[in-house]
């Protein structure tokens, strides 16, 4: 490969240490998935604790899960799946170069994420007023099941809390992406940030896909 012609054909988004945009894209996707593997195991520790304590305190977990509002959980599941759809459509729009579509779908994703977190605030407030937050003020209607129920709610707040932190961080990444998209930074030749953020957002959706049946539907 001649140096001069390679430089002449150089896309501005292509870093000098990659041969082609496709190779650069594949390296980024591989890197993002490596991060997501660590995320799977990060959340995996919580799921491991949940499985073990559910086995040890089955009756408590059953009773405590009835304190959650299934309909709010169902609503939020639908909202989050909806935000995954808008994100997938955003990735598609970035590849086809439809700028206004891309901005619209990214804003939709941000709004749906905000709705999810808003519902979560309502749910958390309800748990505080019902004395279901683990700690000295924890109360449970069945004294025999209280210890296990407190462990259940520790896991509830730990798992949904870590999930919510991921969504909040996602929102902070999404805002600059929307600004960049509106300025036309992304197109068929270079859409890596949109693609990688999409992977992250879908991962957060997958975590919720497992949290919903495990915490709400027992």
């Amino acid at each position, binding site marked *: 490969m001649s140096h001069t012609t390679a430089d002449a054909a150089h896309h501005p988004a292509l870093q000098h240490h990659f041969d082609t945009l496709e190779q650069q894209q594949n390296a980024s996707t591989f890197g993002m998935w*490596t991060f997501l593997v660590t995320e799977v195991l990060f959340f995996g520790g919580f*799921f491991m604790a949940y499985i073990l304590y559910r086995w040890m305190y089955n009756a408590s977990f059953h009773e405590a899960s009835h304190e959650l509002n299934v309909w709010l959980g169902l609503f939020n599941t639908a909202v989050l*799946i909806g935000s995954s*759809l808008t994100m997938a*459509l955003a990735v598609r729009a970035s590849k086809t170069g439809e700028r206004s579509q891309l901005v619209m779908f990214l804003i939709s994703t941000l709004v749906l994420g905000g709705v999810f977190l808003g519902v979560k605030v309502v749910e958390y407030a309800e748990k505080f007023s019902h004395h279901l937050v683990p700690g000295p003020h924890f109360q449970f209607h069945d004294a025999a099941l209280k210890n296990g129920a407190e462990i259940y709610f520790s896991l509830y707040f730990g798992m949904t809390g870590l999930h919510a932190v991921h969504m909040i961080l996602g929102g902070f990444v999404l805002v600059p992406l929307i600004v960049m998209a509106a300025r036309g930074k992304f197109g068929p030749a270079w859409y890596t940030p949109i693609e990688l953020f999409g992977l992250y957002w879908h991962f957060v959706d*997958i975590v919720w896909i497992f949290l919903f*049946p495990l915490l709400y539907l027992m």
Partner: protein
Amino acid sequence: MSHIAPKSQLYTVFAALMVLTVVTVLISRVDLGSFNLPVAMAVAVTKALLVILIFMEVKYSPRLVQVTAASGFLFLGIMILYTMTDYLSRNVLGVAGR
């Protein structure tokens, strides 16, 4: 260059995810005894696979990405399997001090 998902495919996956969500809620209302959990997990795994393969485009990604994605769940499985075989078998032998 890269795979561009048809819009119809994305909408179909979205519809399937919504239907499966409603299905898992309805099934949880029926008492299947010890089968409630495996059924709920089977539905969740199906939903996760739809998201991973289509929304995250792993189905259309290079083999390296597919193996990497699978490895995360492999190690998660090892963690859960080995921890639970320990806890579940601690009383089996009836040895003092286990």
